């Protein structure tokens, strides 16, 4: 009897879970339909659909002959704000009428990422879009997979530094390119900014080990500390209890006057602020973080927090657009260069509100027309790079005409 109840309960649970999921995809499908209708009203609707079905009969036609696409998207998780934002960025290209599938390859492990790419390819993705968060050493394998299965791949928040790997991907016709904010520079800028505010002795909190983005930021920050003749006192690595780690550090190294978290502001900066307060050094120790958090508005206002770099949602977005252009036979980046995108630097609560409203709100920061226009055949890579570099909260607001 109990077994029966449990089975029923579980079946209800799974149905609930599936239903929950399917309603979501229904919603998005409806959205897609709506956008289709919108584009229909702009051009001649029925024709578009027919030509879409015909697919790529002749390539040198007009916009309307674009192939339907499916982007497979591999992320490390959706629990942190950055992960949440980037998986949202994936859905922006849905506005162009394609399909998006997001796979969460958990645990920051290299094998999980390879398996994730395999599964995405198997599930029919035409393009795979990912960040080589487990380090660039994974790229050759994925490059090989993509070439074998004739699937385009693009990487965001990723820099290829090893020349051997660079050579390998460049020779792969299905490689589209990479987009990056310049993690090294961001780390460097953070330290520079804090140094201007009077920071001399630094503590860096690493949020992950073996994650390329994190390492680049740390390298940048360390370089800046070195160049400016400051002291890097201690590096805290992936603390389970951040507050305790920072407290211990501050007691042990009383000279420390700046704490730099190179990622996960919410996870590391807020507890650091608590720690600074609990050892009685509120106001004496500067803090800075990466990635936006819910509390940073209040913390910036109170002066507990000096600087946050983040909002790097569009690296993913531009990467996707780049891949689409290649898939449609007119690559915007034929030389597979790295597309640079600026970081958003946040100093006031209002900036954050605007970010939440305009960038990651209900409406994408770029309309479908803008997206198509940015990769249209009359644009060159330099134009595209220019559009990317213009990205800022103000830019989004101005394009909305508000």
């Amino acid at each position, binding site marked *: 009897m109990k*077994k029966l109840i*449990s*089975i029923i309960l*579980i*079946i209800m*649970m*799974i149905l609930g*879970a*599936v239903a*929950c*999921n399917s309603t*979501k*995809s229904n919603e998005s499908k409806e959205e897609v339909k709506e956008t289709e209708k919108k584009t229909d009203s702009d051009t001649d609707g029925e024709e578009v659909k027919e030509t879409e079905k015909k697919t790529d009969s002749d390539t040198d036609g007009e916009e309307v002959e674009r192939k339907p696409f499916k982007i497979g998207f591999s992320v490390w998780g*959706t629990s942190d704000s950055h992960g949440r934002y980037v*998986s949202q960025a994936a859905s922006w290209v849905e506005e162009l009428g394609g399909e998006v*599938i*997001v*796979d*969460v390859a*958990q*645990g*920051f*492990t*290299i*094998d*999980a990422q*390879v*398996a*994730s790419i*395999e*599964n*995405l390819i*198997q*599930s*029919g993705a035409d393009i795979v879009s990912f960040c080589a968060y*487990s*380090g*660039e*050493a*994974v790229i*050759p*394998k994925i490059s090989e997979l993509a070439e074998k299965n004739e699937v385009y791949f693009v990487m965001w928040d990723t820099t290829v530094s*090893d020349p*051997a*790997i660079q050579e390998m991907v460049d020779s792969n016709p299905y490689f589209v390119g990479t987009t990056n904010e310049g993690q090294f520079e961001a780390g460097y800028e953070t330290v520079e900014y804090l140094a201007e505010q009077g920071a001399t002795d630094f503590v860096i909190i690493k949020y992950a*080990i*073996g994650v*390329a983005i994190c*390492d680049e930021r740390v390298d940048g920050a360390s370089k800046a500390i070195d160049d400016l003749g400051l002291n890097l006192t201690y590096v805290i690595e992936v603390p389970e209890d951040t507050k305790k780690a920072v407290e211990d550090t501050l007691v042990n190294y009383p000279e420390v006057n700046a704490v730099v978290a190179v990622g996960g502001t919410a996870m590391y900066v807020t507890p650091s602020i608590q720690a600074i307060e609990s050892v009685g050094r509120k106001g004496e120790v500067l803090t800075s973080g990466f990635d936006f958090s819910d509390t940073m508005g209040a913390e910036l206002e109170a002066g507990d927090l000096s600087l946050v770099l983040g909002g790097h949602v569009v690296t993913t977005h531009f990467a996707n657009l780049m891949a689409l252009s290649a898939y449609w036979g007119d690559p915007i980046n034929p030389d597979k260069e790295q597309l640079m995108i600026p970081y958003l630097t946040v100093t006031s609560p209002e900036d954050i509100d605007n970010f939440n409203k305009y960038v990651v709100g209900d409406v994408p920061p770029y309309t479908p027309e803008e997206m198509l226009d940015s990769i249209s055949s009359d644009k060159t890579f330099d134009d595209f790079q220019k559009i990317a570099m213009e990205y800022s909260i103000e830019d989004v607001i101005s394009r909305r005409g508000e």
Partner: protein
Amino acid sequence: MMVVNMDIKKGRIQSLFQYNKSKIAPLLGLVLLVVFFAITSKGKLLEASSIENIYNQGFPLLITSLAFVYVMATGNLDFSIGANVGFCATIACYVAFFNTKLAFPAALLTGALVGLINSLMYVFLKIPSFIACLCMMFILTAANQTLTGGGSKMVPVELLQNDYSIVRLVLLLIYIIIIVIIFHKTKVGKQLEALGISVEASIQTGVNAKLLFIVSYVVTGVAAGLAGYLMLLRVGAASPTLGSSLTIDSIIALVLGGMSILGGASSSMICAVTGSLITTVLNSGIVLAGMGGDAQQLIKGALFIIVVSISTLRESSSKNF
């Protein structure tokens, strides 16, 4: 003599049903899971390339969970196996720069050594195996992070050329044959099972308990070495987190496969095979069926509970832990 033979035959069929319910139910769960995903993925799950993917993604788990049977049969767990896989891969990667031919033996040796240390802590210092292995996990993870310098390390290109699926398949088959025969057809396996039921009675029946505990951990160590080496070839790089999920996955796979976490009479290699297949099909089926995104883990959890409850649809033993 005829009568005896008849009796044995009749008994075999009878005992197949009576005493193997715990192994048949998980198979049913696996079949249901495959059917479920075959339908929801519109047949994609059963395509050849998809089956190849399942093989590619599932072999490390198959390797570790088969070896995990050795440890779990005695009622112990090896919490360090996942970290050991990554550590062996890193060592192999380093050795490969020196000599590609030595990489494979180096991985096996490293794994075996780690297993040996685990078992020595348990057998001679009498530290509960759970704690000993947990501590070993921390140590190996830190060592691996230090060796890889916190980032990933690419293997030499010559080594990558060895990643012919056929080589891997042959290695895997040899491994499976050896490990299954040792467990089911030799003294070692039967004595390990006996230890899981009663250490005291086993010792009094001439089982060298200490030696066998050591053997069981060395086997998981060697398996970690093999899995580490093959994973290194597959992903082409060593990384601090490589294989780290295999500990939990192995335990889950064995329980899904119908084995008791306390080991003993329920121990069987078929549990490892069924269990690791269920886990791999689950992981890849969810993506193929388009159930990706946030609900992915939720669905995994729910399906996990369903499969567990199906595989425990037997006379519920009071062996709660």
